């Protein structure tokens, strides 16, 4: 986290547009900021950098589970006279009401967002924030929108704070333009553009290579955890294992040779890897140290010899600890094959999940009709564009509602925050791995 913010920005007025020379102190506010700036925080950070720093702070708060009080001032929507863009007396009132923020607490950080909104963050107990809120409530007149002043808590309200930061940057949704670093295999093929094509010869060579290789380096293992917003520790539920396509391509494919360009060959390769992951689970050493595990499998893999061996070796009491992720495309392509796999798996005591779901898929193909126990919802920043009603509708279609959903691909706090808002408590992804710490 960038607690040591750019000192050159420290003297700026939060209401000046970025780049404005605001070196001359014009109010008690800036004077106080300069005085505090010399000693350390709080640091005044107007402009896009402030929004980025605020996003980083929120993500850190979520990642480390540290509590923060937040005062969100939607000044951007106010009358310019009120927010103090000019030397209007009303604007001065707002500034003076905010002055206490700077006087008592060096732990308060203030972020002047590009759209004029102001966000103050302090660890609890945040008396200066409360004082500022009361003062502002007195200053703002009745024409101010009802949500002009909001008091929020991190990490629970991370989504709302991120949304404010994203909005100030001109982005819609709460993702704030952060790229999700989790590399999902791309769902659309990409043109190879002269690079080595992923064709049957490349696949055959790859299958020979992988047949005798240790797949540890190309397997992604992540722990699915139960994680509540009320600060309980992350409780591990099971370990999700699946091929890491990015690592696989980097390890054994020439540059530009992309399995996604030939989806049918890629699916066959995926089946090979599924079978290998299952064979590893059936290894005596793995069975002795059995832990709950999740795998995504195709119907062919379930009916294959590798799974038959695992099924024979796994004690009956351990079967409920194996979560089998079934794919919607397999159900649509061969519904009767899907149904027989589902029924056989259920009869043997395995748990079933719908893998890689999206809200649109849940509405089209309700999990209840598929007969699965869980839904593994794939995080995407697009989720934040869903209305609360659409989100609730999609999740209500899941078995047990949001409680039966695993949100996967959680790499940034926006995902966790969205999940909590939706009532989801099971999560998986790089951020969850970080929160669990070294194990």
């Amino acid at each position, binding site marked *: 986290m960038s607690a040591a913010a750019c000192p050159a920005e420290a003297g700026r007025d939060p209401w000046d547009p970025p780049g404005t020379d605001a070196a001359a102190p014009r109010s008690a506010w800036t004077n106080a900021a300069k005085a505090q700036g010399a000693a350390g925080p709080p640091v005044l950070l107007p402009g896009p950098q402030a929004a980025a720093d605020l996003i980083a702070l929120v993500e850190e708060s979520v990642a480390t589970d540290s509590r923060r009080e937040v005062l969100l001032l939607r000044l951007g929507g106010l009358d310019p006279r009120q927010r103090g863009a000019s030397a209007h007396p009303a604007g001065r009132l707002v500034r003076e009401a905010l002055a206490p923020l700077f006087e008592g607490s060096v732990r308060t950080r203030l972020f002047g967002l590009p759209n004029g909104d102001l966000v103050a963050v302090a660890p609890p107990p945040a008396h200066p924030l409360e004082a500022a809120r009361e003062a502002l409530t007195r200053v703002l007149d009745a024409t101010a929108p009802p949500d002009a002043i909001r008091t929020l808590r991190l990490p629970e309200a991370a989504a709302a704070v991120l949304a404010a930061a994203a909005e100030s940057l001109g982005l819609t949704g709460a993702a704030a333009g952060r790229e999700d670093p989790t590399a999902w295999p791309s*769902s*659309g*093929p*990409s*043109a190879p553009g002269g690079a080595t094509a992923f*064709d*049957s*010869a490349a696949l*055959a*060579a*790859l*299958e*020979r*290579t992988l*047949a*005798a*290789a*240790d797949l*540890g*380096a*190309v397997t992604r293992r992540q722990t699915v955890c139960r994680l509540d917003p009320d600060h309980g520790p992350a409780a591990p539920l099971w370990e999700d294992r699946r091929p890491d396509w990015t690592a696989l391509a980097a*390890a*054994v*494919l*020439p540059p530009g040779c992309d399995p996604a*360009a*030939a*989806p*049918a060959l890629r699916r*066959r390769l995926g*089946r*090979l890897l599924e*079978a*290998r992951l299952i*064979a*590893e689970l059936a*290894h005596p050493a793995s069975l002795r140290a059995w832990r709950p595990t999740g795998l995504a499998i195709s119907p*062919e*893999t379930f*009916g*294959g010899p*590798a799974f038959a*061996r695992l099924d024979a070796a796994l004690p009956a009491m351990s079967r409920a600890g194996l979560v089998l992720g079934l794919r919607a*495309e*397999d*159900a*649509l*392509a061969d*519904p009767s094959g899907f*149904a027989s796999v589902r029924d056989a798996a259920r009869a043997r005591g395995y748990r079933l999940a719908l893998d890689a779901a*999206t809200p*649109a*898929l849940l*509405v*089209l*193909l*309700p999990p209840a*009709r598929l007969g699965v126990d869980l839904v593994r919802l794939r995080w995407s920043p*697009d989720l934040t564009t869903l209305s609360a009603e659409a989100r609730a509708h999609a999740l209500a*279609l899941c078995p047990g509602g949001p409680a039966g959903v695993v949100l996967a691909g959680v790499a940034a706090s926006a995902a966790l925050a969205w999940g909590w808002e939706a009532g989801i408590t099971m999560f998986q992804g790089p951020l969850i791995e970080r929160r669990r710490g070294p194990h």
Partner: protein
Amino acid sequence: MNRTDGPAKAPAPAIAGAVWAEAPALAGLDAWLAGLPLAVVLRRRIGIAVGSDGGCGVAHLRLAPSLAEMRRMADPAGLGDDLDLFDHARRVLARRLLAALADPGLRAGLIGPIAGRMAAAAPPQLHLDLPDGATAAVAAEEDGPAPEPDAASAPVAVLPLSEAAAPELLAARRRMLHRRGWRLALTGLSAGNLVLLAAPEALPTDLLRLRWSAELAEPALASALDRMDPARLVLTGCHRPAALAWGRARGIARFEGAEAEALLRRAPWAEAR
């Protein structure tokens, strides 16, 4: 059935790099497909349109590789045992077919005679598979809506229903097809998967190719069928008179299958509609 599905060997060294050695069967699949005679391996299926007066005419021509034909030919890769490899073959042959149809000399032979006449005079609407990458540039193109191309003349891209597992992506691919003057059909809708779909009418597609079976008449499917516009449906697999009767009772006008083609042959007034 899957030859790669075997157990892991003993623990082996970590991957150090690809061994680009020849594995004759699978490795040669693409080369084999490149040399396969298209005209032999393609299945031609004439789609008919039946009017309210019972008269029928040619509605479209479905050209797609036949799994059975490929199995009959010398198959070096065990293609028929692995549906993923057949799927790959279908995509590779789709690319060859599109290229061949663009060549006037090859086109007439591939389309062939329809209802006793060479089709060159009145080319039927084509229902064709799409090769890999055909809609890959979806994200790159501008994403505005495009009007649906003319239903009577625009070619129809046929994608498997399983593509609907990514509904948003499918909707984007449909828009891209529209911009290029194609319409979209999803194939493989059946009694088995119709019962899973909560809103089949909301599938982002122009046409739905519904495979006939006696189970379609089950009461559990009636409401799903009622919600779908019969004008968007093509009833496929009509090899028995019962299929045509069921479809016409539901208001469906387009049919594919042996019985549909037999009906066309029996119609003295048969002509393109």
